[in-house]
């Protein structure tokens, strides 16, 4: 009887268990996307999902200087100018300014000069900028006021601060109009030693009174600088301010399109400087305040960062003109419509490429780069060498956008070195021979999946002065054949070696094989094939290349002391002007002598003279000619083996609209539009859960248990022999 009862109980329990499992499965089926990492209610909203792999360290526009930081702050802060989203070559347009800056030249006495004045007569240049009235800051506790007009949170008590967890714990927020004084205040912040702006040392050379101001306020609190004047920066009225720089520096206007020169309300520093807030990590670096299209609603760079549309964003419309072909591509379909189109942007931390890529394929990220692991899955090359999407990507409606970046990677020679450096014909020919032998087309094919363009000179495509076709070819390394640049044969390089006194790579003086040293920080196992490749390139000339692997710190020390012989380096443009590349070889910027960016310590008086002439010129025929002369000089002297300009490959889902790569602008987010209906449909279709393998696994497990149970019962019942 009791066994019958217990059997019935087991049966009841088993039935309940089956019902529960079925209920779970049916419940799960009702939601077709169990793998959705986002809240269901966001499904049909205008939310853009992006990722980031490295947490931004600084969101203070005076300090931030890396691309992962700009990805956020460029959406929040607004400098007076920006790059036109569609036009190429890159063109500055007003952002918060009413127009482009009014530029006035002054002599040493402060008298105005004509715009055609000689460079030598120009002692100062004034940039007079007028901003639009009516622009307001995002709602922020920093600007919250009570009924009497006093700031609510500028005098928090220790107890109040103690209760704070995040800035959102302060319930009230306020706003105010953007005024010219905010731009002036931000420039003063750049000079404050406590802020440690990365461009402070450079701006000392340009902005009048910057250095003096920096010394004057060294022991002052950040907010105390508000009422201390800086000679070169003045608010002329509520909406107009003037920046006075030393001499003539036409590229200064590009700096005015960078977040360094975005406005900062003085109230921010007053608020954040309150003692105890930094212990709570409530700082300007963490909770920015701007006038841009978005504000930072959640900042947890360990997990995600969320931007929400700024409810007080001023009127800005999608551009109504672009370059030829943009209209046909649908890039002007939203012309004249108010920006931004996206309500919310969610940035998720994804450190690993595999989960990131899989989530992109599931539709949970709207865009993706292409890691080398996934390259073959996404991209194929046609017979003509053009990159296209694979069939699998096309079936998903994914779009591919490629763009040659405004950067260069190069193999540098230390021009102070006794063997490879110097201005002698012998050393020059040796460098030219190496430039021919190191086959960067092969490098791009092997190590970059074809994502790059071999460099013909110092400046990359898209920068003024870059010459296309035959005119742009480096004649010391390439021949123009059949309508394209073709690397000179290795025999030419060997001949140059012989002329340099190293026939077959043997030093004719010592009769020993020439040994050169390559200093690099690429020391991991993954880097070994690349280093072997370099060795083989030099072997073509009989040169023995010794790889001197070192850590980053030692490498930097060697570069500063001029102890490296050959090195690999790169540069990414700050702004789209050839000056920002040629200055890398300007004598007074030599690293050893002056601590500048001329890492190879190249010195050529003719180059320096032409550079000084070119940097102050407006774009035009004369400037173009000088740029070509500069290119010729560096191609002949070969202080670098011009490596390559990387090509960025990005994938976007079909629902991603208004897509045009803009390598200079960082604030493209406001132009982006998402077809949310299409996205919801695709996601639902791509992410239906599959249960049968799970059920099959459970059944197999149960079946496996049967012999175990039988064996156990047999063992229990067996008698001792």
């Amino acid at each position, binding site marked *: 009887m009791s066994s019958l009862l217990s059997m019935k109980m087991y049966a009841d329990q088993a039935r309940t268990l089956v019902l529960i499992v079925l209920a779970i499965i049916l419940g*799960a089926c009702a939601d077709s*996307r*169990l*793998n*959705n*990492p986002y*809240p269901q209610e966001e499904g049909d909203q205008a939310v853009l999902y992006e990722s980031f792999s490295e*947490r931004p*360290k*600084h969101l203070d526009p005076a300090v931030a*200087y890396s691309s992962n930081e700009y990805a956020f702050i460029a959406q929040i802060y607004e400098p007076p100018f920006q790059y036109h989203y569609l036009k190429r070559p890159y063109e500055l347009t007003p952002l918060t300014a009413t127009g482009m800056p009014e530029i006035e030249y002054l002599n040493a006495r402060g008298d105005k000069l004509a715009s055609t004045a000689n460079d030598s007569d120009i002692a100062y240049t004034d940039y007079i900028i007028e901003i639009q009235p009516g622009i307001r800051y995002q709602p922020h506790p920093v600007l919250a006021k009570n009924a009497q007009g006093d700031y609510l949170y500028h005098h928090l008590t220790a107890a109040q601060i103690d209760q704070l967890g995040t800035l959102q714990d302060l319930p009230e927020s306020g706003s105010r109009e953007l005024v010219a004084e905010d731009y002036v205040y931000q420039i003063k912040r750049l000079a404050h*030693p*406590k802020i*440690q702006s*990365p*461009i*402070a*040392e*450079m701006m000392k050379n340009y902005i009048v009174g910057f250095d003096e101001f920096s010394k004057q306020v060294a022991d002052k609190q950040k907010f105390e600088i508000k009422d201390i004047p800086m000679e070169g920066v003045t608010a002329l009225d509520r909406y107009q301010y003037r920046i006075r720089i030393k001499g003539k520096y036409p590229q200064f206007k590009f700096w005015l399109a960078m977040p360094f020169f975005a406005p900062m309300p003085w109230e921010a520093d007053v608020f954040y400087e309150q003692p105890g807030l*930094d*212990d*709570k*990590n409530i700082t300007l*670096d*963490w909770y920015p305040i701007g006038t841009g299209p978005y504000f930072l609603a959640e900042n*947890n760079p*360990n*997990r995600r960062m969320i931007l929400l549309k700024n409810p007080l964003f001023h009127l800005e419309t999608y551009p109504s003109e672009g370059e030829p072909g943009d209209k046909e591509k649908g890039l002007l379909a939203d012309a004249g419509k108010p920006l931004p189109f996206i309500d919310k942007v969610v940035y*998720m931390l*994804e*450190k*690993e490429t*595999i*989960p*990131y890529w*899989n*989530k992109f*394929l*599931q539709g*949970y990220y709207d865009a993706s780069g292409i890691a080398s692991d996934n390259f073959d899955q996404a991209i194929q090359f046609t017979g003509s060498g053009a990159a296209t999407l694979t069939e699998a990507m096309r079936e998903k409606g994914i779009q591919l956008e490629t763009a040659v970046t405004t950067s260069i990677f190069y193999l540098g020679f230390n021009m102070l070195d006794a063997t490879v450096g110097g201005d002698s014909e012998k050393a020059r020919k040796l460098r030219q021979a190496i430039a021919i032998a190191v086959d960067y087309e092969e490098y791009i094919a092997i190590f970059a999946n074809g994502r790059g363009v071999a460099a013909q000179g110092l400046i990359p495509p898209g920068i003024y002065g870059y010459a296309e076709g035959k005119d742009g070819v480096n004649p010391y390394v390439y021949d123009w054949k059949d309508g394209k640049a073709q690397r000179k044969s290795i025999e030419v390089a060997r001949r140059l070696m012989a002329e340099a006194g190293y026939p077959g790579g043997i030093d004719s003086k010592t009769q020993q094989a020439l040994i050169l040293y390559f200093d690099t920080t690429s020391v991991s196992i993954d880097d070994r094939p690349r280093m072997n490749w370099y060795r083989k390139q030099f072997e073509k000339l009989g040169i023995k290349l010794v790889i001197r692997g070192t*850590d*980053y*710190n030692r490498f*930097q020390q060697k570069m500063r002391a001029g102890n490296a012989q050959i090195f690999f380096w790169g540069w990414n443009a*700050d702004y789209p002007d050839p000056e920002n590349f040629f200055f890398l070889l300007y004598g007074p910027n030599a690293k050893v002598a002056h*601590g500048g*960016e001329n890492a190879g310590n190249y010195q050529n008086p003719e180059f320096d003279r032409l550079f000084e002439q070119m940097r102050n010129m407006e774009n035009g025929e004369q400037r173009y000619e000088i740029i070509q002369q500069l290119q010729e000089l560096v191609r002949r002297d070969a202080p670098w083996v011009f490596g390559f300009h990387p090509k960025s490959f990005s994938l976007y889902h079909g629902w991603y609209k208004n897509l045009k790569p803009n390598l200079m602008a960082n604030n493209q987010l406001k132009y982006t539009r998402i077809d949310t209906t299409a996205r919801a449909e695709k996601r639902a279709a791509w*992410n*239906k*859960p*599959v*249960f049968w*393998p*799970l059920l099959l696994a459970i059944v197999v497990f149960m079946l496996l248990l049967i*012999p*175990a149970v039988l*064996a*156990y019962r047999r*063992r*229990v019942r067996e008698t001792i022999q």
Partner: protein
Amino acid sequence: MIQYIIRRVLYAFPLLMGVNILTFVLFFIVNSPDDMARMQLGQKHVTEQAVENWKQQRGYDLPLLWNSKAEGKEKLTQTIFYQKSAGLFLFRFGISDSDRRNIAADIQQRMWPSLAVALPTLIVGLLVNITFALIMVLFRNSYLEHAGVVLCVILMSVSSLFYIIGGQFLIGKLLRLVPISGYEGGFSALKFLILPVLIGVFSAIGANVRWYRTLFLEEVEKDYVRTARAKGLSETRTLFRHVLKNAMLPILTGVVVVLPTLFMGSLIMESFFSIPGLGSYTIDAINSQDFAIVRAMVFLGSVLYVIGLLLTDISYTLVDPRVRLS
């Protein structure tokens, strides 16, 4: 026992001081304050003045261990070592060198997600591993045990990275049953935790089941087990009631010692599943030469390990009445 605990706590001080000195020396053998400054300031437009400013702002302009220019006790206190280390013993971790964030607040925020993965993995793992180990002992000397051992060896021979990538591919991508990666607070975390916990448990089955099986096999041959069987107790009852209880001591040693360090997280697991825990905090700090975080995390790790060992000793007395702390 109180005296024993106090004595152990006092012993910990020189130990922690030693760890602190070692961390300091190792870090500054590889890096100098100048290197740290240059790393933080980036590669563009970095001048000597900017480097000096950076060091001065963060207190790295002092001598490392001995300030010969200072007077009296300041020769010792006006050094980077003293300034950066003294606060640690009061659990004042200070501000990070790279992004100027309060380290204690960061640790507080990041340890919970780490714990959310590590604790269920430990508990479920213990239950699963002990169960499988006992089943193997139950079927000892049978084909089931042999097959189980072979399976364990296979499982423990596979890299944990394979389990992670394979698990994400199979369950997240092919079956689409859970998100591939991500994290949410509160109960919403559940769907994000299933996969990492499952993989965490599965990847450790091989090694742990074998280890527990060895413990149980040792125990099962003892006289009291034979006596229990002779008294007519069933094999399952003998194993689960008597053998398990007596084998708890070595199991406890392994478990209790890791309890405090569960907060520290797992680097690979958290990285692949985008779990905002402490796993990558130290590695990121080493990569960015953030000495403030490195010393704080090494110190914290040492403290937690010392606590773990102490807890293990105390737990012995609870499990085995014969053990006395003196």
